[in-house]
Every structure is written in structure tokens, then in C-alpha cells.
């Protein structure tokens, strides 16, 4: 299963912020974490993560600094700001609302499906 592009784009802010809430990180590690958590279902083209990070940085939700990595290369690390924390709380409420709504619908549909499965043979017989 792969998740459609719009959905990936829509969830990117929440994903990045939530991962940075666990601690400072950098592009490659963020991506690895997303892959790990989603079991590969959330497939980002690697390069596309960076425009997202830059957008968040520009709107002040995260901030960056260059530092030496353990391999000795210069690497750009990202850190969440207070504004980012507020935004994450907001995103979280929104996603939970979406999740809850869909959850109710899934179970409603499941009930319907049970009935209709029972009805089909009846209808076919008549």
C-alpha cells in the first residue's frame, strides 16, 4: 500500500514537527524515522523533505544550525521552537478530529456491510 501524494503533503507538517518534538534531528534521520514508523507506506521522495523543512523554518516553527556530524561532515540540524510546539498541538487536535470522524464512519460502514451481505442472497433469491 502506498499513500497518495496529497495526503503525504497534508501530513508533512505534523510528521516533521512530531519527530522534532522527540529531539533535534536532521533531514536524513527524519526521513528514516518516517519510513520506520509507517513501515514504508509513507513514501517521500527524499529531496521533497527539504522544501518542507525550509517552509517550516521560514514560518518560525523550527530553527536550524549547522554543526559537525559524527562523520565529520557539516550537517544542518533542526530544532523545534515554541511556536512549533503550539502548532504541533494544534495539528494534533485537527488530525485527531479527522481520525475520530473517519473512525466512526468506518465502523458505521462495517455495520451496513454486515447487513447488506446478509441481504444480497435474499434479494437474489426473490
Amino acid at each position, binding site marked *: 500500500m502506498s499513500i497518495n501524494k496529497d495526503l503525504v503533503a497534508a501530513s508533512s507538517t505534523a510528521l516533521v514537527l512530531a519527530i522534532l518534538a522527540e529531539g533535534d534531528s536532521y533531514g536524513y534521520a527524519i526521513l528514516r524515522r518516517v519510513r520506520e514508523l509507517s513501515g514504508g507506506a509513507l513514501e517521500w*521522495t*527524499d*529531496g521533497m523533505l*527539504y*522544501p518542507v523543512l525550509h*517552509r517550516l523554518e521560514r514560518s*518560525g516553527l523550527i530553527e536550524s544550525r549547522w554543526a559537525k556530524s559524527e562523520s565529520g561532515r*557539516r550537517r544542518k540540524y533542526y530544532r523545534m521552537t515554541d511556536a512549533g510546539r503550539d502548532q504541533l498541538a494544534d495539528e494534533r487536535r485537527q488530525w485527531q478530529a479527522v481520525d475520530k470522524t473517519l473512525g466512526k464512519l468506518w465502523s458505521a460502514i462495517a455495520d451496513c456491510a454486515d447487513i447488506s451481505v446478509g441481504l444480497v442472497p435474499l434479494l437474489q433469491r426473490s
Partner: protein
Amino acid sequence: MDQEHTVNPAPGSLETQIGAWRAHLRKSHTIKSPDAAELEDHLREQIASLSAGGLSDDEAFLVAVKRMGAIDALTREFAREHSDRLWKQLVLSSDAEQGDGETAASGWSRKMWMALALAVAAAVAIKIPALFGLPFDAEPARAFYPRNISFFALPFIAAYFAWDRPLALRGRMALAAAFAVAAALVNTYPFAFSPKGEPGHTFILTMLHLPIALWMCVGVAYVGGRWRGSDRRMDFIRFTGELFIYYVLIALGGGVLMALSVAIFEAIGIKLEPYLQNWIVPCGVVGASVIATWLVEAKQSVIENMAPVLTRIFTPLFALLLLAFIATMVWTGRGFDVKREILIAFDLLLVVVFGLLLYSISARDGLARPGLADWIQLTLVGAALVVDVLALWAIGSRISSFGFTPNRVAALGENVILLANLGGSVLLYAGFLRGRVAFSRLLNWQTFYLYIFAAWAAVVALLFPLLFGFA
């Protein structure tokens, strides 16, 4: 895949491959070198992890590049995010043009013909009233031309964008309606004229403010009806600045052309002035506005954006002027000589400072660290605020004794609006310099103000005549 990527691995070949990839990346103007370094770090990390999983360097490089995404798609995505960089690169005007070069080229010439057609239409439109007995040079009844000054150029610029941008039918209708309503109102308002035919205050105020209000309608067409995003509005502000500069340049060229033609025809005893005044000047003035619009759109990459360059020159100079002014006031102990025109003078000062601020932040990289230029900017705006508040203070006690004429109410209103804008900017700018506020907040504040300018201009242009009895 490039040749280099498939040749036999030689010592250091991974480095050469990464070098080639980086060079390719850097060809795009939208990915700057820190961004490229960040992406390269990612690529190397990916390669290292793949190599650890047992792939050869070559294989690891190929997989890593593939995962990174096609460079074209990547640069497009960066361009979309960093629209300030993109603005210079012509990619912006519509997504449809991201096809191959051929269609893009024909798209441009199509636009050129459309601009030419609209320029001719504007030139014809300004001569049509002459057919109905309203010659351009004679003073016709009730100042027909000044009254309609907004409607000879702006609708054509708006039409160009309405045609060029993917604007919904409803949006186009709303634009047409806005222009039609404004035209109807202005032409039916019974403005008062003195017995000598001189117009009253409200007439002049309407003439000055209606173009500003309608310019915001052009802005709606410019952003293709999607005016909610701060970035799109900022693009429109950039466009306005460039258009102004292009227009001034074209006007200067036109002036030289006309002066020369008068001079050389004079040499053979033919007087050209009447033709120039009646035909070339009015047609040129309106036609050039449409051509300038197209030029700004088409030639963004030819010169660097000029407005930010000019602001960079004049910001320190104006800051010095204002500091010198404050110092002189303190040193000599002179107060303001309160005259009636003082409000207008300080309005103009605030407008200039506002313009300098607007165009320097429109070009600033929001992520760059605060530097000397920012402090100069803050000094300029702060000094302007101090001077303006002192002036308002001085006028304050006497403003009611001056009487509330429409001119003064309009001038006072503008002063207050600009004061609030600059005051907010100072707070946000100071917050940004101390690292408390994101630079984008400042951008949002400025672009949000477009609404207020539009609303105020519309109020002065269309409501003031009613409020003040068309005096």
C-alpha cells in the same frame, strides 16, 4: 543517466559522481549553495547506509540519487517554496508553462501579441471620447478626462492578467463589475465646481484615491484570484515596484523621442506639438502602461529586481536625513511651524519610508541572520515614527481649529494608517532582530496591509464625496 555515472569505477569515482550530481544541482538558480550542501549530506548518508547493506558504491549512488528524486522536480519544488528566488526566474506565471522549451517560447510570443493588442485597445479607448465631441486639449464639460483617468489604463492591465492567469469566470465578472460600478459612480456624482470650472476638494481626492483602490483590483487579477496567501500578495507588491520603474524608464525614453521629433520637424518648419499633445502623448501614456506590464512579466531575469537595489541605496540616506532632522530640532530647540500643509508633507515622508521598508523586506532572505542593513532599516523607521509623532503632537491642539475639510480628514486618516503600519513594523522588526519573531510575520503584516490601503482608498474615493456633499 550521464556518461560519468556508468563508466568503469576508478579510484575516487564516487566523489566524481557526487561532484557531477552537485554541479547539475547547482545549475538551478533556486537551489542555493547551503541547500545543495544539505542535500549532498543527505545523499552521502544514504549512500553510506546502502553500502553498509552490501551494495557497491556505484549501485548505492544510483539508488540514492533515484530516491532523492529527479532534479527537475526537485528544483521546481524548491522554487515553489522559495518564491522570492523564483520571482526572478520567470517560472512563476503559470504552472502550465512548465512544459518543454518550445511551448514556453510560443507562450511568450502569444503574451506579447496580447499585450500589444491591449495596448492598442487602450490607445484607441482614450481617443474614442473625442469622436463624441470631447476633444483632449479643449476643457470639456465637467472635467471628463480627469474624472475617468482610472479607466483608460487599469482595465487593460487587469484584462491582461485576467486573460493570462487561470481566473475563474466569477472572478472575471467580479472584476468587471468593480470597474463598472466605480465608473458609474464617478460619472454620476454631482461634484461641485467653482464658477471658473475649478474642481472642489472631494473631486481631487477621488481622482487621487480611485486609481489606488482599482489597482488592488488589478492585484486580484494578478494573483489569479488567489489573494489569500501572503506570498502571492508579496509578488504583487514586487510587481508594482518593478512596473513603476519600467514605466518611468519608458516615459523618459518617450520624452526624449518626442523632444527630438519636435526639434527636427521644427528644422523644416513643421509644428508637431498639436499632434503630439492630442495623439502621441495620451495614446503613449496608456499604451505604455500595458507594455510595461508585459515587460515586467517577461524580463524579470534580464535585470535584477530594481526596486530593492534602489531601496538599498536610499535607506541609509533617508535614515541619515531623519536623524539629522531630529538632532537639529533638539539642538536648536525649534518647534514645528504649524501650517496647513504640514500633514501632507508628513504623509509623503511616511509614504517614502513605508516604500523603502516594503521593498527592502520584499527582497530580504527571511532566513539570513540580522545584519547592519536591518539595524539601519529599523533606525529609519523608528526615526520616521518619532518625527511623525512630534508633528502630530504639534498639530494636535490646532487641528480642530483648522476645521475638518475633506482634505484634512483624508490626510489625517492616511497618517494614522501609515503610523500604525510603521509602528507594527518596528515592533516586529525589533522582535526579529532579537530573534523572537520569525521574519515571515513581518511579511504577513505588510501584505495584510494591502487590504487596509484598498479599503481606505475606496472610502476616500467613493464615500467622501457623499459625506462632504461633493464640495
